[in-house]
Structure formats: structure tokens, C-alpha cells
């Protein structure tokens, strides 16, 4: 049986077809037959046909995007090049010793790492300070951030959820210098008067909390302020990945007779752990490079002591403090080399983090869905 299929005509009705009527009348009847329509093309069709194949604009767009993408590589390459060139002099003087040597002052007989007067430079206390303050900050921030995230996703009354989440995220919007000011006027006195004496009394036996620094400045102060600064990053990411865990996973654990905490541990945290590690890495990234607030409270002394209550310094702090006042070429070059080292440390930490992510994901061939 033959079925007649009616093809609807997608043409502008004649009555409304008032665009360039002269043109249509002039059209050669032989041309108009090509589209299967004897009266010629509609204005819309004519307009589209006149646009051609658009190859030129498409090509232009393509290369514009390539340029944008390449500019990222270009900027990174320029930074590396500038750092390498600037640190040339320090590298020629100290080689790898820059990252492990200490110097004995010929006059006082004391060990030192950083002596602009005598032209002796070593990055050891700065790398140490950056790593110690950052990891100490993680130690404080991670449990707190995960706790905040658990409360917000699993326990918080619905009405409080949005305002509390907003407040934690607002912490990330406060400028670093404001944190620094708050730390100098509020946090450091608090640590000096109330917290540090307790740490010394109860944990002093470990040697990590000696009482020889009466200022309240130092690694602990820096770590606390860093912890507050990285808390919102870690907690908001953790919250996001926890919310993404499907409800069916929670029900599966609950149906096995789990308590609320067991449900959170087995049904939520376990499924979200990869994302949580990602959040911690982001937090570490910020902690390593954080400059202003740390500079204001870490004490800025290029020395290494076992005690976490002693003054220290960090790579970013020494750059902020000394770059403008570096008189000798060697001093400036040494500072640039620290900048280079900070760059490299950040890359190493990120690589380590990737490795960590790989290690935890290895056990789970497929992710939560």
C-alpha cells in the first residue's frame, strides 16, 4: 500500500513576504527550480545562503582560543625563566648547598643560615618554616573542616544550613592582611597569655613546646591563622563531595543497623574520601604560598628550633620582608632563588598529592555514583 506523506512547507507565507519583492521578480526561473520550489527562495533562506560557509570566522575563533590556551604556558615559562635568570648569581655561589648548608659565623662562632652582611645565604630555615607551618595548619584545619562539613550536611537543622555554610565560605573572602591584623592584636596575645603556657606545661616534655619565647609569635601562631584561612576551602569542598554521595548509600548502611556516626563513616566519608583529599590538597596549596598573615605572626627569624613556639620564618615571608631592602646583588639573587624553591616545593607537593589521590583511588576501580 502506498502511503501519501504530506510534507509541510516551511516557508514564509506570501502575504508577509515583503522583503525585496523586486529581487524575486527578477530571479531567473532556471535557478529557482533547484530547491524544488518554483517561486524562488524565501528571504530567510536567501539570508542564510548569503552567509557562505563561515570558514573564515570559525578559523579565527579557533586560533584565538589556541592563543588563549598557549598564553598560560607562556606565562608559566616566563616566570620560570625570570626566576632562573634572577637566581643565577646565588646558584653560582652556593649550588645545592643553598638547600642544606649552614654557616658558622667566624666572629661569634654561632651557626647561621642567612647572613646578608657577610654574604652567606641558605634556604634551609625558610623551607623548614614553610613546611612546618603548613603541615601544622593542616593538622589543625583538617579535622575541624571535616567536622564542620559533617555537621552541615548530616546534622544541621535545614533552616540553619544555608546561613552557616555561607558564613564558613565568607571566611575565604576575608583579605589575608585583615587576618594578619586580627592575629597580631587578638590571636597572638591569646596564645601568649593563655594557650602557650598550657602547651608548655602539659606537652613541654616532648620538647616541641618550650617556654623560651615570650612573644607569642612563632610557628603555632602562624599555623593557627593558616588553619583558619584554609578551613573554608577544605570544608566547602568536603561538604560538596559529601552532598554528592547518593542517598541510597546512606540507606544501605542504615539498613544494616548502623548508628548515625557509623552511617557517616561508612556510607558518606568513605565514598567521599577522594574529594576530601582533593580539598586538603587545595588547602595545603594555599597554606604553602600564604604570605601576609604568616609574615605578621611567624616572628621572622631565620633559625631552626625544635620548639614550635619559637620564632621562625617562611619562604614567602622572607621575600615579602627583604626583597625591597636587598642591597647586594647576591642577596637579591638568593631571594629569587627562594622564590624558585617555593615554586618547586609547590609543584612537588602537588605531585605528591596526585600520588596520594592515585593511591586512594587505586582500591576503588569505579567511583561513587
Amino acid at each position, binding site marked *: 500500500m502506498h502511503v501519501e506523506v504530506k510534507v509541510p512547507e516551511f516557508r514564509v507565507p506570501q502575504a508577509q513576504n515583503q522583503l525585496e519583492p523586486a529581487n524575486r521578480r527578477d530571479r531567473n526561473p532556471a535557478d529557482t527550480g533547484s530547491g524544488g520550489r518554483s517561486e524562488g527562495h524565501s528571504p530567510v533562506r536567501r539570508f542564510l545562503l548569503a552567509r557562505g560557509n563561515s570558514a573564515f570566522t570559525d578559523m579565527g575563533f579557533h586560533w584565538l582560543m589556541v592563543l588563549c590556551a598557549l598564553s598560560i604556558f607562556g606565562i608559566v615559562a616566563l616566570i620560570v625563566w625570570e626566576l632562573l635568570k634572577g637566581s643565577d648569581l646565588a646558584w653560582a655561589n652556593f649550588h645545592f648547598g643553598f638547600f642544606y648548608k649552614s654557616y658558622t659565623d667566624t666572629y661569634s662562632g654561632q651557626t647561621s643560615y642567612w647572613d646578608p652582611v657577610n654574604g652567606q645565604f641558605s634556604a634551609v630555615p625558610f623551607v623548614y618554616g614553610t613546611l612546618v607551618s603548613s603541615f601544622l595548619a593542616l593538622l589543625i584545619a583538617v579535622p575541624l573542616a571535616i567536622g564542620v562539613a559533617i555537621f552541615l550536611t548530616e546534622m544541621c537543622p535545614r533552616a540553619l544550613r544555608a546561613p552557616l555554610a555561607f558564613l564558613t565560605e565568607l571566611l575565604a573572602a576575608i583579605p589575608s592582611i585583615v587576618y594578619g591584623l586580627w592575629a597580631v592584636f587578638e590571636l597572638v596575645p591569646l596564645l601568649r597569655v593563655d594557650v602557650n603556657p598550657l602547651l608548655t606545661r602539659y606537652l613541654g616534655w616532648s620538647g616541641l613546646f618550650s617556654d623560651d619565647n615570650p612573644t607569642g609569635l612563632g610557628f603555632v601562631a602562624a599555623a593557627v591563622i593558616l588553619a583558619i584561612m584554609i578551613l573554608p576551602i577544605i570544608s566547602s569542598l568536603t561538604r560538596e563531595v559529601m552532598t554528592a554521595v547518593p542517598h541510597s548509600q546512606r540507606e544501605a548502611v542504615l539498613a*544494616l543497623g548502623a548508628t548515625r556516626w557509623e552511617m557517616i563513616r561508612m556510607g558518606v566519608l568513605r565514598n567521599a574520601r577522594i574529594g576530601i583529599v582533593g580539598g586538603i590538597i587545595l588547602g595545603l596549596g594555599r597554606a604553602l604560598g600564604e604570605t601576609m598573615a604568616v609574615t605578621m605572626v611567624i616572628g621572622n627569624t631565620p633559625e631552626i628550633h625544635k620548639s614550635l613556639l619559637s620564632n621562625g620564618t617562611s619562604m614567602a615571608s622572607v621575600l615579602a620582608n627583604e626583597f625591597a631592602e636587598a642591597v647586594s646583588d647576591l642577596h637579591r639573587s638568593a631571594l629569587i632563588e627562594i622564590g624558585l624553591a617555593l615554586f618547586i616545593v609547590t609543584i612537588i607537593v602537588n605531585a605528591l598529592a596526585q600520588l596520594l589521590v592515585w593511591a586512594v583511588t587505586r582500591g576503588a576501580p569505579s567511583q561513587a555514583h
Partner: protein
Amino acid sequence: MGVGIEVQNLNAWYGNNHTLQDINLNIPANHATALIGPSGCGKSTFVRCLNRMHETNPIARVTGVVRIGELDIYSDAKPVEIRRRVGMVFQRPNPFPTMSIYDNVAAGLKLNGYSNKRSLDEIVERSLRNSALWEEVKDDLRKKSGASLSGGQQQRLCIARALAVDPEVLLMDEPASALDPVSTSKIEDLIFQLKSQYTIVIVTHNMQQAARVAEKTGFFLNGRMVEFDSTHKIFTNPSDKRTEDYITGRFG
């Protein structure tokens, strides 16, 4: 061995929505009982009331009496204790994707602090054999994740997970509705074997399934239980007109 379930005047709400109204029935021990009815009739809510999963939703509310064996679950016990005695299998397979097959099955026991490794191995094997999955997974118990299995295997893994804690009652909320016909028939065979040892309550959309696996069948409609009787009677000579309309396909 399983125990019977006695339900008296059970009412349940979601917010202002009265989803279950005055349900009364006795579910016999060591038999399979099917609950049928159109979507939204309250049969899923009903099974979720049997292990107090219904109340995990903050807007949900329940009144009435449910006795599992001798235990009045709404007045004598906490939800956690009840769920340790009543296993549940959900509509969509929900194995733990970050755990191996072994850990998935052992999850309920590990959760409750059971740590005898030798007997854990035995329980895992027995549960997987009982859920007819052992032969398919025995070589990569610890190598493969629970999520790497096919849908039907995942659902049998979830059944093994529920069996591992040796429940007295096994609730199944449309356990085969997300599966292909071959997996479905495997699940049905499984229910057929398991019902001598456990009290099974199975919610299903599929009336043939109810007819195949269950001794007793309840028909739910609009939050009420219209009829509860032997499966044979429900499908051959129902006493209520609405049941007859439903099973003959006149609606739903």
C-alpha cells in the same frame, strides 16, 4: 530462623500526606509474602515501616503497633537494634563502591564490631552461596569492587550483604525492578530458596512475580490494604472487586 510480623493499626505520613491508613495484617514466619498495588499506593512505605527506615526522613511520621516476633519495634527498641534483625534490599542495587566484594558482604558485621576473621570468611562464603553469587565472584573477592559487578550481580551482592547479618526478616523493596529478565529470574529462584529460612516480605509491581514466589499476597490501594490472603486466592478468586480489577489489568 525467621519470625512472624504482626501489624496493628499502622498509619504513616509524609508531611501532611497520609500514605498508610489503618493497616492490619499478620505476616507468617518463614514464608514469602508479596505486596502488590499500583505506584504510590503505600506498599514501599509499608515495608519501610517494618524496619523503621520510614522515619529517617525528617518529615515522616508513624503510629500503630508492629511486632516482629515478640518485639514491639516502636516501643521496645531503638531503630538501630531493629535494623540489625531485619535485613533490607532496595529497588536499585546499592553496593558500596569503595569496598571489595568481600568487604561489601562483611560490612554489616564489621560495622557492629564482629572481628573473628576465620568465621567472617565462612559467613561471607555462606552468604554469597545463599545469594547464588559465590561461583561468579569467588576468584576476585578481594580484588574487585562491589561496583564492578553487573546490575543483577550487584543486587545479589546486596542480598548477600543483608543475609550476612543473619536477619530474622528480609524486606525486599522491588528487588528486581531495575534488572533484566535473566537476573530477575535468578532473584526469584533465590527468594524461593531463602523463604524456608527467612521471613521474606517482597514489594513488587510484577504480579507474575508475586504469583511465582509468594504464599501470601496483600493488595494495596491508595494507602489502604484492600485484601490480604493466600496468593492463590488473590489471583484466582479475590473477594474484593478492586483487587479483581487490578489483577485482571483493568487499572494500575
